[in-house]
């Protein structure tokens, strides 16, 4: 039986496998994998269900925009709503304060109002934006909607989540600012992952790890990796210390993740790291996303992209996890616009752009970002 992408066709495979117990927050996917929700309904659809348990998700930050925080916040909130253990690390002195910025889920009665909004647009249909109209069929499918409500919530970014006391909710926060060689980090991760081991009895509980801005420049260890790459050595350091850092973080973390029922989402500022480290981490990731800033009040972009006023940034999906299967996941579209619908919930949409001249090949080939002003910038579609 051929596996169709749910959003693109009217066939939908019944994935509910009655042999395995249903745990709230965890969905069973094909090939014996399980998903947890990303916290953003659109992203779940794009990735084919959510984040795979046991996978490593890396998000490449853009120095000019804080969109990676939006992804992290929704991810963490979803975990808290489902009562899943959470480990959070950030390069700030007080990581707990970030918990105060997590969004709370939208109450069900507000959710229904999303339906009628698309009805109003029925008057005008734009021919080359035909793909936008496929999704309308699924809104009428009641079954889908109920299942979605349990698995993935829409979050209201304006309302903060009331996080109960730490003990009750299995939330652990720590700061990665000061660890010189990250042994503390390693220990925290291993104790956390020991809570959610993977064994034959089935999935007890799914855990979430969220790490913000790994290897940010203000952390003490960020220079050591740079020396390892061999560029402009100012001081010498022992080879062990140099080599240890980057390889050990991702290899260690990835191997621990595989044998546990947890998902780790790590954001890192790829433009600030040495190219070799950045590439290594990109290859290490099972799912790789990147966020990009867009210029403000740009008339040309406003003409080119519809819905520019609501857009806050771009999300690019580089790689989707391929677990227990040889079949790669090929998406129809890789770049999505991040919009704040009515300023409160996060919506990802495919980019609808005007037909372009095929001869301007630079807009397709290069992956330059809006953040570099000295290079000629072009959007990567």
């Amino acid at each position, binding site marked *: 039986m051929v596996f169709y992408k749910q959003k693109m066709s009217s066939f939908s495979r019944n994935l509910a496998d009655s042999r395995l117990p249903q745990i709230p927050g965890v969905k069973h996917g094909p090939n014996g994998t399980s998903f947890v929700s990303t916290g953003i309904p659109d992203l779940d659809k794009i990735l084919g269900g959510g984040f795979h348990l046991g996978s490593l998700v890396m998000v490449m930050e853009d*120095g*000019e*925009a*804080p*969109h990676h925080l939006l992804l992290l916040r929704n991810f963490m909130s979803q975990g808290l709503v489902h009562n899943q253990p959470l480990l959070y690390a950030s*390069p*700030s*002195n007080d990581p707990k*304060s970030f918990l105060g910025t997590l969004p709370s889920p939208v109450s069900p009665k507000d959710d229904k109002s999303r339906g009628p909004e698309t009805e109003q647009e029925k008057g005008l249909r734009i021919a080359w934006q035909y793909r936008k109209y496929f999704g309308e069929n699924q809104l009428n499918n009641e079954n889908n909607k109920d299942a979605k409500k349990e698995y993935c919530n829409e979050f209201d970014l304006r309302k903060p989540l009331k996080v109960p006391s730490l003990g009750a909710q299995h939330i652990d926060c720590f700061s990665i*600012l000061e660890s010189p060689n990250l042994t503390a980090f390693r220990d925290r991760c291993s104790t956390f992952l020991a809570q959610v081991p993977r064994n034959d009895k089935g999935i007890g509980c799914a855990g979430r790890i969220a790490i913000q801005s790994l290897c940010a*420049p*203000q*952390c*003490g260890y*960020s*220079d050591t990796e*740079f020396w390892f790459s061999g*560029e*402009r050595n*100012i001081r010498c350091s022992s080879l062990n210390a140099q080599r240890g850092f980057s390889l050990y973080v991702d290899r260690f973390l990835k191997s621990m993740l595989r044998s546990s029922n947890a998902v780790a989402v790590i954001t890192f*500022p790829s*433009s*600030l790291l040495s190219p070799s480290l950045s590439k290594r981490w990109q290859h290490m990731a099972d799912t790789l996303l990147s966020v990009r*800033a*867009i*210029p*403000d*009040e*740009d*008339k*040309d*972009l406003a*003409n*080119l992209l519809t819905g520019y006023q609501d857009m*806050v*940034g771009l999300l690019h999906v580089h790689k989707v996890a391929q677990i227990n299967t040889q079949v790669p996941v090929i998406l129809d579209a890789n770049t999505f616009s*991040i919009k*704040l619908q009515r300023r409160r919930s996060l919506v990802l949409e495919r980019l609808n752009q*005007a*037909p*372009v*001249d*095929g*001869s*301007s090949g630079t*807009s397709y080939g290069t992956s330059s970002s*809006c*953040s570099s*002003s*000295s*290079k*000629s*910038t*072009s*959007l990567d579609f």
Partner: protein
Amino acid sequence: MAESICRALRDGALEGEHAPALTIKDTLHTPYGFQAFTHVLCSLSSNILSAKSQSKCLVLIAFEKSPSFYYELLRSKGVDVNTMKNWLRILDCYSDPLGWKDGITGSNDAAVKICKNVRDLEKLLSYVLELGKGVVGQGKVRFSVAIDSVSVMLRHAALSSVASLINNLRSNNQVSSIFWLIHSDLHETRSTTVLEYMSSMVASLDSMVHSSNGQRSSSLNIFSIEHNSGKGKFNVRLKRRNGRVKVMCEEFHVEQTGIKFVVISSGNGMVNHTLVPKVQFNLQLSEKERADRENVVLPFEHQGIGKEVQIYDGRRSLPVEQNETSPVLTTEKSHAKADQGKGEIHYFRDSDDEHLDSDEDPDDDLDI
């Protein structure tokens, strides 16, 4: 634009947010970064003096110039020296940064503190906070920090320590805003990128002449340096709270009295023209084309103007009549290229030796 960044620094930080941070960067081709820095410094000072700004004090970490230079500068802008002690503190890293001179132990000026070891950035941070809190006290009142030149700081300390110093300053509850100057060609690109990452506004001074591929002329043109007329482009990238980046461009002129910023009328169009790929067809008509289109007489049965109907079948030319407008040709391939006021359709054949109807399917191959 210079006004908007001065305003952003004046407004300062919101509760629970990092303080706004400005990077001013320049290169050898446009070595006027220091003038821009002093411009921002004077603007913030006047805002502090007139109590319009969130911050009530300015702590200046001086690496490149001595404190007396800054006193002179502010005096020339009309600020009274005596009142300066109420709101200005200078951390003097210029006189004796590495502690080589034994004689200087303290200065006679209470507003100036000499730092003898600029390598120890933790100590530097504590001096800055001490100086700032000395004026505003503990509590909710905030102060601003200006760093004369991060380039000099980077000479003495590692990038990660400088980054953590800036991060600590930004996240401190009592810092309202922070700005610094860096000479970007003195460092690796990584240092400049890190500082841009840590700042919420980046202002760069570029030369007027941009090479076509956008690289900041790596080919050193000796004559271009000599012709540095004190003019250039002031490009600002502002990171807004909603995650978008506001890109602005101005021109600046450096004169005796300081630096002046002029808004360019062409605005943002030039900056981002490479972002837009060319659309395949031009749906817009120019004014002339629109007017001409109105004048074309269409070869339909009813023109709607009450005249006699002339149907042209494409084989013979119309008999010319005085009252009629000039003959029109109808083929599928005709396109409207009109004369002034007459409204003709001109058809240009591909080659002159074609027969009249060769555009249509030739029936030569039919054997009837």
